[in-house]
C-alpha cells in the first residue's frame, strides 16, 4: 500500500546484521555501527527484530521508554547523544521488561511485518536491522518484508571458535 511504501521510502540503505550463532555480538555491533555512522554525520535508524531477547534498548539506555503512534505509524524512540538515532524494538512494547515473549512463529511474523512497514522512520541514510540468532521465522519474515526496499546487504558476525 502507499502508506507501507512511504515509511521505508525515505531510507537510503538497509543493512542486516546476522549471525546464526547466538552471543557473538550482533546487538553490540549493531549499536556501535549506528553510533559510528551517526558520528560520521549520517542519519541512522535501528530496527531490533529480536522478539525473544531484545538487547538494543538497554545498550542505548532507553529500556524504560514507551512508544506511541502517529498518523503514519509507530514513532521510533530517539537515542544517542544528540537524540538523532531512531530506534524501534519490541522491548518498548513490553509492559514489564522481564515478561517473556513466548510466541510461536505466525505471531512473530505478523509483528515483524508491522515493524518493518509501520514505523515512521522519516529520511534515513542507514537503517540497521539487528536480528536474533538462528535461521528461522524472524529471518525469513524480515527478509521477505524488506525485499521491495533498498536492501544493501548483510553483515555477518562470528567469534573465532
Amino acid at each position: 500500500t502507499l502508506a507501507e511504501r512511504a515509511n521505508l521510502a525515505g531510507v537510503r540503505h538497509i543493512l542486516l546484521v546476522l549471525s546464526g550463532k547466538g552471543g557473538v555480538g550482533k546487538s553490540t555491533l549493531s549499536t556501535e555501527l549506528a553510533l559510528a555512522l551517526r558520528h560520521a554525520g549520517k542519519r541512522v535508524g535501528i530496527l531490533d527484530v529480536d522478539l525473544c531477547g531484545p538487547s538494543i534498548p538497554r545498550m542505548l539506555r532507553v529500556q524504560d521508554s514507551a512508544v506511541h503512534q502517529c498518523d503514519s505509524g509507530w514513532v521510533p524512540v530517539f537515542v544517542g547523544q544528540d537524540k538523532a538515532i531512531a530506534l524501534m524494538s519490541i522491548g518498548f512494547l513490553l509492559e514489564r521488561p522481564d515478561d517473556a515473549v513466548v510466541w510461536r512463529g505466525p505471531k512473530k511474523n505478523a509483528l515483524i511485518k508491522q515493524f518493518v512497514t509501520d514505523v515512521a522512520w522519516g529520511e534515513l541514510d542507514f537503517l540497521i536491522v539487528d536480528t536474533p540468532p538462528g535461521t528461522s521465522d524472524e529471518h525469513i519474515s524480515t527478509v521477505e518484508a524488506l525485499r521491495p526496499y533498498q536492501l544493501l546487504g548483510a553483515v555477518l558476525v562470528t567469534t573465532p571458535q
Partner: protein
Amino acid sequence: AELRARLRAVRHTVLVLSGKGGVGKSTFSALLAHGLAADETKQVALLDIDICGPSIPKIMGLEGEQVHQSGSGWSPVYVEENLGVMSVGFLLSSPDDAVIWRGPKKNGLIKQFLRDVDWGEVDYLIVDTPPGTSDEHLSIVQYLSATHIDGAVIVTTPQEVSLQDVRKEINFCHKVKLPIIGVVENMSGFVCPKCKNESQIFPPTTGGAEKMCQNLSVSLLGKVPLDPQIGKSCDRGQSFLAEAPESPATLSYRNIIQRIQEYCEQHHLQEEKIM
C-alpha cells in the same frame, strides 16, 4: 500415546535453557551428559533440539555420523555404550546446510525425535535447546508433558545484557509450570594461567547471577570460570572434564553436576513416597 510409551522408560529429564544465545547451553549439556555417564551403571541420552544451530554433534565428536533406522525406530548415535546422542545435525547432508524452517516444521521434527528415537531404558534424558522462548521451547514442554520433566537448568553469563534475557526465561518456566533446578553462571571470571590474576571478562554490573537468583528465589547451582581449554575441547569434540581434570572450571562443573543429580534423585524419592 506413542510418545508416552517411548518416554515411559526415561527416569529423569532435564532441560537446559537460557533465553540468551552463546552462554554455554550446549557446552553445559554435553558436559552434564559426560559427567552423568561417567557412572557406567547409568544410561544417558542427550537430545539436541537446536534445529538452526545444532552444536552437539561437534561438541560430542560425532560430526559426520548418520542416523540409522531399525524396526524399533531411529537409533541414537552412541559416544559411549551408555551415552546416546540425537541431533538434527545428524540429518543434514552437509554441516554447512542451513535449516531455514518456520515454527511448525521445527515442531514436527521435535515431535518426531521424541516419538521415533529408540533410546531404550534411560536414566537421564538431557535436552539442549536453542536460545529464545519460542516454538522449540513451547513444543518440548508440551510434548514432554507425556512424561515428567524433573526441571530446567538455566545457563547465563554474568552481564546484565544476558541476565535480562534469562529473567524472561525464568518467567517462561513459571508460565509453563516447569520447575527450575537452578541457574549456572558461565564465563564467571578468568584466571590468567601465567600470572594467576583474576579478571572479570564479563563484569557482573548488576550483581550477576547471584543477585538475580536472590531476587527471583531461584537456586544458583554454581559459577564456572572462563577457561580457553573449554572452547578448544568443544571444537575438537572431546570432553573438557576428561581433558582438563585439574582446571577450576572442571571442579565447578563437577559440583554443579552433582547438585543436579541430587535434585533428580530427591525428586524421585518424593514421587515414590507419594505413589
